[in-house]
Structures are given as C-alpha cells and as structure tokens.
C-alpha cells in the first residue's frame, strides 16, 4: 500500500487503530476520535482493515435477509444520515466491530451509488431488493430487454449481472448469497 495513505492515516491520528486490531484488541477504538477524524483517512484505514480481515469478496443479498444474523447493517433506518455520514458510520463499524465483522450496506435505504462508495470505506456486504427503475420490486419471471438487438431475458438475471458489475467496478469480487441457504431468513 501507498506510503501516502500511511502518512494520511498517521496525520489523522489513526495509526494505532490498525495495529491494535492486528494485535487482537478489537472494539477498543475511541469512537469519539473516529467521529472527528479526517473522513478519507478513516475510510482508507477501514478499507485496509477490511482487506486484512475479510478480503475482497462482497457478499450480495438480494433480496435482503429478514434478520441481520450478526451483520452490522447500515444505514440505521431510524437515523437520518447524509452520504458522508453513512461512509463514516461504515468505516467506524469496520474499525470498532468484531474481527472479520460483516459490515452490510442496504442499498434500499441509501441508494446504490452510496452503497458502492461504501465498499471503499470498509463494507463487505450489500443487501437490497432487486427492483425496477421505478422502484417497484420486479415480479418473479419478469423479462427485460437489454439493448436494441438483444432478446428478452429474466429480469433477476439482468439485475444480478448489473449488481455484480457494480461490485467489480469497485475493484471487488461479487458473491451472491443463496437465498434458500440463508439460515437467517426466518426466525
């Protein structure tokens, strides 16, 4: 990694946080300090910790599981957050959560643009409904045309490809959670 990023993390007073996590001291970070730290340095640090602890795969839940089952799910629907607030919350979740925490961003709540950016700030899971551009969930078996010369294809396949592309364009590896395998799907 770049020494530039190292210096930015050090300048933001965050150099000890990664070392503490590597030493197994998780959850001890001073949240108040993280809340006021430079956002990009915080994000870079969270991204490094994410890479250390969970690697580059991004688990995609579409539709989202009914319960979080241990994942830290952001944004909190009860809090109003700006995009910048959300990125900070994601980074803090990564830096203060348990080792290899599942930091999940729900694009239904924040939009896919921000969800993708959050992947650079420590998130390693995405969740949300696969829906039409109008915001309505796509019906089972719905078909979509893709491009003028293409044939109609199942909408969920098309949307899954789009989601996967979104993750790849963030430099990460998409992995879809198998809906039927989600033990957390129902209490």
């Amino acid at each position, binding site marked *: 990694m*770049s020494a530039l990023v190292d210096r930015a993390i050090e300048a933001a007073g965050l150099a000890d946080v990664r070392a503490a996590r590597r030493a197994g001291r998780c959850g001890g970070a001073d949240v108040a300090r993280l809340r006021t730290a430079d956002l990009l340095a915080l994000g870079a640090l969270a991204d490094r910790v994410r890479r250390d602890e969970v690697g580059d795969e991004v688990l995609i839940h579409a539709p989202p599981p009914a319960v979080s089952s241990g994942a830290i799910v952001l944004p909190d629907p009860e809090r109003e957050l700006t995009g910048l607030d959300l990125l900070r919350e994601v980074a803090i979740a990564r830096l203060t959560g348990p080792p290899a925490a599942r930091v999940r961003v729900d694009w239904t709540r924040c939009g896919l643009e921000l969800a993708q950016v959050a992947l650079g700030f420590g998130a390693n899971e995405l969740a949300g409904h696969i829906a039409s551009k109008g915001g309505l969930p796509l019906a089972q078996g719905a078909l979509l045309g893709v491009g003028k010369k293409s044939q109609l294809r199942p909408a969920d396949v098309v949307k899954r490809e789009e989601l996967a592309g979104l993750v790849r364009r963030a430099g990460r590896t998409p992995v879809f959670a198998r809906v039927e395998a989600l033990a957390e799907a129902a209490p």
Partner: protein
Amino acid sequence: MILEDVLHKLAAGDRLTYDDGLALFRHPDVVAVGQLANVERERRHGDRTYFNRNMRIEVTNVCVASCLFCSFAKLEAGAPGAHTMTLEQAWRELEARMDDPPDEIHIVNGLHPDLPFSYYEDLLAGFKRIKPDIHMKCFTAVEIHFFAEHYGMTHARVLERLRRAGLDSLPGGGAEIFHDDVRRRIAHDKATAEQWLEVHRVAHGLGMRTNATMLYGHIETFEHRVDHLLRLRALQDETGGLQAFIPLAFHPDGNGMANLPAPTAMDALRTVAVSRLLLDNVAHVKAYWVSMTPEVAQIALRFGADDIDGTIVHETIYRAAGSRSPGALTAEQLVRLIQEAGRVPVQRDSLYHVVREHPRAVVPEAAVKVRDRKHAKHLEVLP
C-alpha cells in the same frame, strides 16, 4: 508507488504526464487517489466551496445532430416531444422568478436549422432588458460552431454579435470526448474536437471566460479521458480562459447507448479526483450535482471538487437521460449540502467573484437525507 510519485511531482511543481493520468485512473485504491486530489484541492481553495444562483433554460430541443448519448434532442420540429419556445415564453421563465431572481441564466439548446440568427440575439437582449445585471452563460461551442456554419459567419463574428446582444460567457458543454475514435462514433455530425477547442480559443481571445466538460462513462477508455484532459490543459496553457472543468457522467436512458451501464459513483469520484490532479492550470473542478446526484456530489467535495454548480431550477437534458437528481436545489439547500461536507459555502457570481461567504457550520439537518430516498428507489442505478 504512483501516488508517491504524483505527490512528489505536485510538491515540486512538476506536471503530471499522460502516463501519470492513466496510472491514477487505473489505481486500485480510489480513496487514496481522492486523498491526493483533496490535498491539491485544499492547497488551492482550503475549505471554500463555490456555488451560484443560476437557472437553466433549454429554448429548443430541435436538433440536426444525432449524438448517440443524447436523450434530449428531437431531430425535427413537430416530432413528438419537440419544442421551441417563443421569445416571450423564454423571457417569462425569468420574469416569473423576479421576486427572487437568479444571478445567471445558462442556456443550452439543440441545433435548430430553421431559426433565424436574430432569434438568439433577441433572446439574449430580452433577458438583459428584464434584468440588466444578469449573467448570460449561453450556447456551447457546438452551438457557436453550428451558428457559424449555418449563418455563414466566422466564430469570432458569431461571438461578437451575441456579445453585443448580451452574451457574457460560454458553458462547457459539447466537448464530450475529444478523441476521434470515440467522437466519430458518438457525435459524428457536429463540431469536431478541434472546432470545439477553436471556438473556446476565439472566445478567450475576445476576453470571454468559458468552462469545459467531459462526458465520461460510455464507450471511452481511460486513455481517451486522459487525452481529453490534456487537450484542455494545452488550451488553457495557451489562453488561460477556462474557469472550471465539469466531468459529466453519461446517463443511458432513452438514447442510442441505452444498452450501456451508467458510470458508477466510484467512477464519478475517481474522475473528479484525476481531473483535479491533471488540470493543474484550471482553477475549479465542479461536482455537478445534476449529473452525479447531490449525495455523490457532496462526497466529491472531498475528492477534489471545489464547486457544486448552482440552483439550476429547470434542467431537462439529464432528466431526459434518466437522472434521478432533483430538478432544482435552493441556495439554502446547497449551503447545507456544503456545510455538511465540512466545507465553507461561498456564493459566487459567474466569474467566481465572491457574492457571500457563509459560515462554516455543523448542521444537524441534512439537505439531502439518505432516508428521504429510501422510498424512491430500490435498484435504480445500473452499474
């Protein structure tokens, strides 16, 4: 290593090269590239972040060009959805807002083959009659070149006549991607790259200020983007007349490239950052909220952008291409958007003179809340 090299070059005042630009676009750590751009942004502007009170008007979408990326233009008058305002209709747009008038009118149109040149002169003059101090930022270089060819004048003559009628500066649209490999495929029947650059060169020679854009995220490559940025940098070396650079994200709805995915937010942030770093002689880089959504524009203020454009009021070009950004933001919303990003809002005029500097503030209420959007969309943005 590339980031270290770039940092050293910036510190030494050395120019970034084509290869540097390419490496920045390809660098896997977009947040680190953003950090670098943020250093450069803060060196130039500190926390100051500019916006203005402007108003967009598109008086006609009738157009003889057939750009693949355009969802706005209708080729022929009378086609469904085609419109051309009468002068009175256009002027009424301003008259209706004279209780709280904008400082700038930004006009971009289709290339209408049947309007007399006097229509445009009268259009400008009419706005100036209504509000003599309004700044008229009108007609892209593509339009100016079309006027020159269509009405049989030189670029200079077109600009001189329009200036006499009230034109103050040129917007940056129509640049698209300069490289011929792309331009001939997406915009083969309008001003070439050289003609676009020449119009701006002539405008600068007449003492006008202009902006520049780049439409990214369609069929172009990173090489094409770097080439585009360096051509703008070369023009700026020559004339010094560019005020701001505005990266414009391609939106695919309803146009000839609807099969392509839209560029992602990551790409938008990276493009802002690399633009800030490569365009060392252009003072301002805009995060155009209409193009990238207010939320991502707000983040871009930490990735190299120092300007978030204006209130807009009535934008139709991006909306026709599927943008879900609101049609307008109030000045108060823009102030809050900037303050929430930890920056200092500065209301400017069209030539970047300070109108009012707002205080830095931590505002509990967001202009654009994540929660506001949750009912509006699920999977709306295609990667």
